[in-house]
């Protein structure tokens, strides 16, 4: 912050003595503050007016809502145990396979997308791949891949691998860009080859972050694999969808509890691992 300019704008202590203190507003410029407020209020009114809510339908649905909440108290793991088991295994299989492949592919792309390592043409290509992967959402990619490769876990696996590349390469490339240059320089000064330079100069600096990010991505991949089934790309989502369609809330509650449980376990595990490597 520029000290002199704020001193000019704000009154001196002599002027302020005896006046009442007011909280400083978030937006300093008066006209901008009111313009933002009025614009936002106008938008809110227009938005809320355009949302059609069938309150009678909502009211009638409250019974079903209550039934669903009650179902969490007595989830039914048993009657569809086979479907739940197969779906869960498929979700986990997709998660593991796509994380491994995604991480393996994203490492070279991250090296290419780091400005301090890669030459400009490679940098542009790798940044392009990252941008495409990040802009397309998992579920849309899954729809397209299901149309191309047919139903089944292969489409889900490819979707999540693709999504992992965008996420991991971007964050890893940022980490490589902010690494300590002198260490890499020292390794290069010993006359190391390019591969040795990467292995001894760059890798040790970014490996903790890579492990942390990978664990985080495994977590995300599992969560995403739970919805891929909605569009036919394999996993627990299909079972869940069927349960909702049949109004079998106790089975749906069981599946949701399993998902929450696994996500919590993964988060705990990744927390432990990240604490160890950092």
């Amino acid at each position: 912050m520029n000290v002199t300019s704020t001193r000019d704008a704000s009154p001196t202590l002599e002027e302020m003595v005896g006046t009442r203190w007011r909280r400083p507003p978030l937006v300093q410029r008066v006209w901008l503050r009111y313009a933002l407020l009025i614009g936002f209020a106008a938008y809110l009114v227009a938005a809320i007016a355009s949302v059609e809510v069938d309150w009678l339908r909502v009211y009638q649905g409250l019974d079903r809502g209550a039934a669903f909440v009650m179902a969490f108290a007595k989830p039914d793991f048993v009657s569809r145990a086979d479907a739940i088991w197969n779906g869960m295994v498929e979700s986990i299989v997709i998660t593991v396979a796509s994380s491994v492949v995604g991480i393996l592919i994203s490492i070279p792309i991250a090296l290419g997308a780091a400005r301090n390592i890669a030459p400009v043409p490679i940098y542009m290509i790798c940044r392009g791949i990252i941008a495409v992967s990040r802009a397309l959402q998992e579920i849309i990619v899954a729809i397209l891949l299901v149309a191309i490769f047919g139903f089944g876990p292969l489409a889900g696996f490819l979707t999540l691998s693709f999504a992992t590349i965008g996420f991991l390469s971007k964050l890893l490339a940022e980490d490589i860009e902010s690494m300590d240059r002198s260490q890499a320089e020292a390794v290069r000064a010993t006359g190391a080859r390019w591969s040795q330079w990467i292995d001894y100069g760059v890798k040790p600096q970014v490996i903790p972050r890579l492990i942390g990010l990978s664990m985080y991505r495994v977590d995300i991949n599992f969560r995403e694999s739970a919805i891929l089934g909605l569009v036919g790309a394999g996993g627990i989502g299909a079972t869940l969808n069927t349960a909702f369609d049949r109004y079998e809330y106790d089975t749906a509650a069981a599946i949701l509890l399993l998902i929450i449980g696994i996500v919590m376990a993964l988060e705990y595990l990744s927390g432990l691992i990240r604490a160890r490597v950092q």
Partner: protein
Amino acid sequence: MPVIETAKGPEWRLRNQREALTRWSFWLVGVVVFLWCWARISEATTWFFVWDAPSIAGDIFERATPPRWSYMDNLWLPIWDTLNIATLGTIGALILAVPVAFLAARNTTPSALFIRPIALLIIVSTRSINSLIWALLLIAIIGPGVFAGIVAIAIRSIGFCAKLLYEAIEEIDHTQVEAITATGASRWQVMVYGIVPQIMPAFAGISVFRWDINIRESTVLGLVGAGGIGLQLQASLNTLAWPQVSLILLVILAAVVLSEWVSAKVRGAII
């Protein structure tokens, strides 16, 4: 760093034998697990379709280009709906997330033993379930439409917003709170003058960040019937109207890029 004595003299190694063996077995287990997973995926795949994929992809691409630009007239209303789902959903989420965050932060929670775990449970459970699943559930309860989408986005975002917000609350400068307390302020006054001003930038940043994510998520909510542009996408996919699909995908892409740009600009201005 172990040094191994050989006939030619001492040799420098990065790891001793035991470390190397542990690492090696770790990698072996990893590779086996991956191969098993791959075998299961491969079993469930009809490879005939996969070998056929390039020609199918080419076929779809041929049908999808050029996009049917005239369909744009039918898309303005769904775009408006999508924007509303994201914005109203984010506002709803923030209203719900603020109390949860204050209950979850160690320094503001009324009871670290009873209330904090409940708040953390709310955060974890809303965060771990995708908005599409929330939408499925809400459609079963309150019927399809934009409203279900708004509620789904709102519930899904509680965990994200509350988590980041309570971390911000835990990181506040305690001396400022103490100074306000020393003036004889009540609990609420301490909240308003001591804590809120410190977390306001974080709060604004989180809301814009989540709004950006919500725009992304609300574009696909329609796939399960929760309103927005996803409804048109689903309808076009069902009728195999590929030129419309490609147009909708372009619109979604533009919306995502635009919202990310807006979010980056606003966050840059705040922080």
